[in-house]
């Protein structure tokens, strides 16, 4: 393979790439496949074991999704354009939170390198303010364009 030695990056010394370090992903795949196989096996074996799978079908129970919409019919349904606007707005604030939580937890957490806070503390704080200002502009834009009026 291309690299077998650690690499010096701006963030410090990166350890060499080692596939065996990714073993949790393999366990995860095993659990997923095992769960799916077990479910399939349980439903099919269940026909012969009435105590495991009693047969009392009703009309609602036999639908593909018991508590969802019936997915049979034309796939070309029309959604109201309002929902797209809501989705985009949701994205604006969702991304904000998604970014702010990890930042708030990690940035000035105790136990960090004291040099880091001296050098980057102010810059990182200003950066997050710029990020919030950008979002505020997006909010202002959406507001003035009348996105919040439910028509």
């Amino acid at each position, binding site marked *: 393979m*291309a690299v077998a030695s650690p*690499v010096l*990056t*701006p963030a410090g010394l*990166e350890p060499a790439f080692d596939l065996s370090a990714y073993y949790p992903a393999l366990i995860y795949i095993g659990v997923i496949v095992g769960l799916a196989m077990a479910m399939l096996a349980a439903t099919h074996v269940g026909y012969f074991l009435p105590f495991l799978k009693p047969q009392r079908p009703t009309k609602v129970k036999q639908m593909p999704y018991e508590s969802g919409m019936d997915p049979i019919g034309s796939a070309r349904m029309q959604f109201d354009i309002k929902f797209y606007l809501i989705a985009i707005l949701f994205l604006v604030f969702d991304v904000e939170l998604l970014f702010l939580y990890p930042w708030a937890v990690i940035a000035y957490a105790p136990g960090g390198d004291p040099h*880091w806070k001296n050098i*980057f503390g102010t810059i990182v704080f200003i950066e997050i303010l710029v990020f919030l200002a950008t979002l505020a502009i997006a909010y202002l*834009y959406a507001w003035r364009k009348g996105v919040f009026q439910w028509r």
Partner: protein
Amino acid sequence: MNPLLDGTRIEALTGVFKLVVPEIALVGVACVLFVLGLFTSSRFLHTSLAVLGLAGAFAVALVAQPWETTLYDGLKANTEAYYPILPSAAATLIRYLTLAAGLVLMLLSTKEATREIAADYLACLLIAVAGTSLVARANDLVTLYLALEMISVPTYVLLYLPHRGKPGQEAAVKYFVLSILSSAVTLFGFSYLFGLTGSTNLSAINAVLTAANKEAISPLAVLAMVLVVAGLGFRITAVPFHYYAPDVYQGGPTAVVAQLSVLPKVAGFLALARLLGIVSGPLNDLPFPTSTQVPLLLWVLAAATMTLGNVMALMQDNLKRILAYSGVAHAGYMLLGLVTASAYATPTEGLLPRYVSGFDGLIFYLVGYALMTLGTFAILAYLNSADQPTESVDDLAGLHQTNPFAAAMLFVALLSLIGIPLTAGFTGKLFLFLGLYDSPTVTGMGNAYKTLTVIAAINAAIGAVYYLRLLGVIYLRSPLRPAVRHRGKGPMLAAVLCTVGTLVVGIYPSIVWDLVKKATPATAHSPALVAK
């Protein structure tokens, strides 16, 4: 040693914003424009603010240039890897060129960006210009991806802003979906690069892969290269990835299509050159196997791109479709620059000093291509009006009688696209073909480079057919429609600027060539390549 005690490294990370002040200024002005557009629809105010933004960025770039040059020249191969943004000489040149292109595009759009959408339109344009400039100086996979998206995302908005019915919507949706697909492929390639090297810094990636490449060919590195070329091939409209271009060009607003034909292509080629390790660093050592793999891939891509582009353009009747395929063909010519650069990278004995190293020819051609393509689109935008749309070839019939001045400028632009001497298109092709023809034949590629030069020359002849057909329609046929007074000072001014530029670069190529040569030293941070 704690990296936080290393002064050079800290300086590289904290001082990074100083290297992109013009780009930050452009995006800031764009934000102000977005907000301002909500409260006032004074077009004069919006336009002057946007022009001020561009001028300000230009002024700041001029002021920052000496400092940036000193910084870049002081860097060594290992300290380069600290910088997420690298003010290389090529990046500085591209910044000025992009700002100039931004001004031309702004002039071009004055007709289509009506009062209601002017603020949003100009803001999106400024962000795309900033993105293109940022691509040239990105030295980190994350920065590079961000810069590429800074061009794509405003383009989605721009394609949809001037409402133009079904074709416009189709163009916008098609570009949106396919652009996202190409970004995904690019990111997939990036993930391999990161996985192989453990770093997102392009200088570090290049250094590590180059060292590894000397020992053995890594299949994963080749895979990463193929994915990156495929993803960026969409932006430069290389052939298997070009299929969106004709539809999007046909449906999109002319000014936006003009932008689409220049900014993403400049960005795509620069990103490709940077990822292939051609922009900086020793040119005789590339991070990917160069005896056959890289040149062969680019060889096939270039040959297919120019041939298909030219042949398909022969069959079109819609002006913008012709220009779309013409853009595909010119992307094929520009790929020759990358082929040349990777060909010279092959470590061989007895390389002679060369005049064209490939990347310089590519940048020079990009300048010429931008001038002539923007000139053509500017004329089309100028002629196009609601009651007399200029869409098909027949709409140009007898233009020399109804509007001789516009016809003359189209004449110059088309001659340049053909590659007739005394135009920018000729000098650009000359440098590219010359560099390719001189490529070493001692490598595994053998005489393939000479064959490709011949293919390119044949293609230039095929290309002449459809450009000459347009000229025939303009000059030899009689008008089909009554002459009208065309309006649009902006597109006219843009066309004049581009025509003058095409002629100046064609007659005195040394003005631009010297700048390009200075910006692309054959070897940066390494002893001279040339042996014997």
